């Protein structure tokens, strides 16, 4: 009798848990609007058709530029948003990716569009090695160590003659006409951005992502709950470096030149951080919205005021205002007050 009672209570618990889980998943399904990002992607994929009726290279450039930052910010978000380790040195992986693929293009003529995943892997390997060292400290110490990493990389790249030193390296442009020259990079960057956002979504909802979110809240508790925090956060570092590295590879060929003072800029890192903070750290849609906002703001500043100093001032100002008044970012703040529009709920 007692045995059956125990059995039935155990199965009742399982049943209740199943029902609960189902309710959760269904609730998620109802509020999520998967069609919106897919439609957006389809529209952007069709955008180059405009080239048949006129010259819209500027529009394509803007979308490409935004897509590159969408991918970089979403990649940064894996470490900074999910795991809670704010890095100001991710421009290093942008540079590593750009230089690795760029060198292959310059030496052997292999397009970066083919070698981009390889560049991502190289960036990830470096991210993994660096992470093993710097992820021992957290909070302000980690932020400072990431800045030091960027400084070290800048000195090394500036003085490494094999890759052109401070003068950089010129890459051959492709032979397409002006009308279509941007297209390969446009589609590559769009694909990378879409892949990154999709991966970030998959990571967030995996056991790995759950572990990252746990260790961002309290690392010691996460560790005692059986999460291998050291491996988790180093893997998160490597993954986020992978996506940033891929973007760097394609961006290098798109620009047709590589130079340390284009790739290894603290402003590039700052933009990734800024986009995530503005959009909402740790959310899927946040970095995307942040990237769109920042690129739009940048264009506005440059178009109306021109000088790059004003641009730096503006970036800092937007960052400070965002931090003080909306520390959760646009998506986070709206979600907390329950007013997030369904089309922006990608989590």
């Amino acid at each position, binding site marked *: 009798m007692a045995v059956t009672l125990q059995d039935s209570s155990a199965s009742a618990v399982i049943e209740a848990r199943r029902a609960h889980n189902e309710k959760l998943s269904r609730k998620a399904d109802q509020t999520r609007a998967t069609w919106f990002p897919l439609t957006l992607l389809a529209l952007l994929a069709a955008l180059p058709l405009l080239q048949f009726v006129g010259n819209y290279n500027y529009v394509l450039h803007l979308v490409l530029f935004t897509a590159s930052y969408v991918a970089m910010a979403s990649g940064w978000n894996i470490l900074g948003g999910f795991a809670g380790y*704010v890095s100001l040195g991710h421009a290093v992986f942008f540079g590593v990716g750009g230089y690795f693929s760029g060198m292959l293009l310059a030496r052997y003529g292999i397009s970066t569009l083919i070698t981009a995943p390889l560049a991502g892997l190289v960036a990830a390997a470096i991210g993994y090695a660096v992470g093993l060292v710097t992820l021992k400290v957290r909070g302000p110490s980690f932020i*400072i160590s990431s800045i030091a990493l960027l400084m070290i990389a800048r000195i090394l790249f500036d003085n490494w003659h094999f890759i052109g030193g401070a003068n950089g390296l010129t890459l051959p442009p492709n032979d397409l006409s002006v009308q279509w020259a941007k297209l390969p990079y446009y589609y590559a960057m769009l694909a990378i951005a879409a892949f990154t956002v999709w991966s970030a979504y998959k990571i967030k909802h995996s056991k790995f992502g759950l572990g990252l979110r746990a260790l961002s809240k309290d690392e010691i508790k996460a560790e005692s709950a059986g999460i291998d925090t050291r491996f988790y956060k180093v893997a998160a570092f490597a993954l986020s470096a992978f996506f940033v590295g891929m973007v760097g590879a394609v961006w290098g060929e798109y620009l047709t030149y590589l130079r340390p003072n284009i790739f290894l800029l603290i402003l590039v890192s700052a933009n990734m951080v800024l986009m995530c903070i503005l959009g909402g750290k740790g959310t899927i849609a946040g970095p995307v919205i942040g990237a769109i906002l920042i690129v739009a703001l940048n264009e506005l500043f440059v178009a109306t005021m021109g000088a790059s100093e004003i641009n730096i001032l503006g970036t800092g100002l937007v960052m400070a205002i965002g931090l003080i008044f909306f520390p959760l970012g646009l998506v986070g703040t709206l979600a907390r007050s329950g007013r997030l529009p369904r089309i922006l709920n990608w989590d």
Partner: protein
Amino acid sequence: MAEILQILILGLALGGVIALMGSGLSLVFGVMRIVNLAHPALIIGGAYITYLAFKTFDIDPIAMLPVAAVAMAAVGVVLYRLLFQREAKSAKYSEMTVLLTFALAMMVEGLLGGLFTNTQRVTSPDYATAAFFIGDVFIPKGQLYAGLVSLAIIAALSLFLKYSRLGYAIRATTQNREAAELLGVNVQFISVLAFAIGIGLAGAAGSLVSFVFSFFPAKHWEWIAMLMSVVVLGGMGSILGTVVGALILSVVAAFVGTWIGATWSTLTFFLALFIILLVRPQGLFGEKPEMA
């Protein structure tokens, strides 16, 4: 032998200036747990004040030091009220303030860039290019004066912290904020005061830096990692530690610069930062691994 002595002297003189640059950073972290990434940008602000006075009125940079210090201290009070006061209660305060000061650094850089352009500047009083000779060893006057003035200011600061009532209050707040408040220390006021002193020290350092290094608005990115490694080596919050850290690293950098190459002397600081964070995150004189 003469060469080693020469390098040692150059390293020590420069180390004094770097110690002053880092001491404000250390003080502000000690009292308020703010890692002020904007500190070097504010040093450059002080340097531009001195530069303007030198160019337009021909005022000596060292004479300009108190003015730059007071002006930057006033800036510090305003910044504290605007940016950091309301953040004090937030849960991720320390991390938050790092990002906030990062944003501040960008704003200061942009502002200075807009006002003064990105040309390299340096003030050039007579002593900046003169030197004493003792046998084969030469001591550049500019660096010597700057180093001595720096160490004098730091000594005055240490005496102030050690013996004055306000100094007691600042140290009490550094050790334990809540206990200090319980014992009747006005922690709010002490925070503003310490922040103002810290930024004032940045201004003072700016005056000295203006004839020791050439500077431009974006230069502070090079300095932040350098100062951080100095402060982290000495132990965040310890002024004595900052001085020792600055002297050690500056001498090591001088040797690296002479024997291996000038490019790699800056690398010394960055690599040192990595190694210290790994081996001993609390630094030489830090009491507990507060930041780890």
